[in-house]
């Protein structure tokens, strides 16, 4: 089945089986391996991407369902502009040591950016509640929460 959609701002056309998951399309067919697959049961959140600017778990979406829509992965975050070219949320994770092994980080970033867009003045409790769909197997949540708060502040200062 032929589908076309926007991927990180660029048009993409692929011919795929209906049973292909979005996470499989991204990683196996399009070589965008920044999106990680942890549990593959929609619990861990490592595979979170943006579908039309909302965070969703790409391991639990059929690739054919994104036909005509817009997908952003962690590879689409960095603009390449500014001091280090990173997205403000990526920089916040870097500065606050918001990762240990880094496996959950792509999903954390995508989830955190969706959160920050919806919460102009977030509290720590709101961050912790929002991140219930993202699991860090290193249990590095303290610095992740700190990073999300800093990243949200930077995103809103920049806008």
């Amino acid at each position: 089945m032929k589908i076309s959609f926007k991927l990180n701002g660029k048009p993409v056309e692929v011919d795929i089986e209906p049973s292909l998951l979005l996470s499989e399309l991204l990683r196996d067919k399009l070589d965008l391996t920044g999106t990680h697959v942890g549990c593959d049961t929609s619990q861990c959140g490592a595979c979170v991407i943006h579908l039309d600017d909302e965070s969703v778990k790409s391991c639990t979406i059929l690739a054919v369902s994104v036909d005509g829509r817009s997908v952003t992965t962690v590879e689409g975050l960095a603009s390449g502009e500014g001091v280090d070219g990173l997205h403000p949320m990526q920089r916040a994770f870097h500065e606050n040591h918001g990762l240990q092994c880094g496996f959950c980080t792509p999903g954390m970033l995508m989830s955190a950016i969706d959160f920050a867009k919806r919460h102009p003045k977030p509290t720590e409790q709101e961050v912790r509640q929002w991140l219930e769909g993202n699991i860090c197997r290193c249990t590095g949540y303290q610095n992740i929460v700190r990073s999300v708060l800093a990243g949200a502040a930077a995103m809103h200062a920049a806008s």
Partner: protein
Amino acid sequence: MRSFAYDRPATMDRAVALLSGGQAMPLAGGMTLLPTMKLRLSAPEALVDLSSVPELKGISSDGKTLTIGAMTRHIDVARAPEVTKAIPGLARLAGRIGDPQVRNRGTLGGSLANNDPAADYPAAALGLGATLITSKREIAADDFFRGMFETALEPGELLTAVRFPIPRAAGYAKFPHPASRFALVGVFVARFADGVRVAVTGAGPGVFRCPPLEARLAEDFVPEAVAGYAADPKTLNSDIHAEAAFRAHLIGVMARRAVAAALQPTAA
């Protein structure tokens, strides 16, 4: 997962026609269906993706009832002004299903048609005495839920919308499983001019009403009215997450919190 045919109709008529044979499975948000297909617990020959059928989405109110399209997502129910104004307890329930990413995909109709014994929405539909509107008829919530993953829906019949009567007050409290966020026990209470309805999810093989609590709360709709109520653990679930006796105890605790929430609709 096994291969299947896929169709994404743009109209309700086409969707109903594609499903009429009873072989194809409707795909709503996919938050349950896709994981079960990945585990090969389910292997439909064809999927009918309902995401492009505009008639299945949306929320409207006539002052007495609130009607929500089956494909309306949890996130949309949680933040719709029509819902937060008319039935704030329903909006809060929707805002606590699963996690944010599940709420961005999962739908009202998908949850009700699936009837997971620990899902949140069945408690709201039964607790509010909702009417489930299908492609063929209207079904009262009291007749819709038939036990674990079973409903009154016939093969080929599509759930299209749900009509909720607007109560004087309603509230929901759940003890979420710490990993899945499904309800170990969840209790929905709704107070109407002519009585109180109480629905319990997570505790038994399917959502059920609790007449003893309904009688107590009809007399006095306060959290204290639940005090001393002991549910019978004999018909409740016992598993690695909670023994039946614990679930029985939680019914009282969650009922008390649900009534408190119903009386304080603005509290978070």
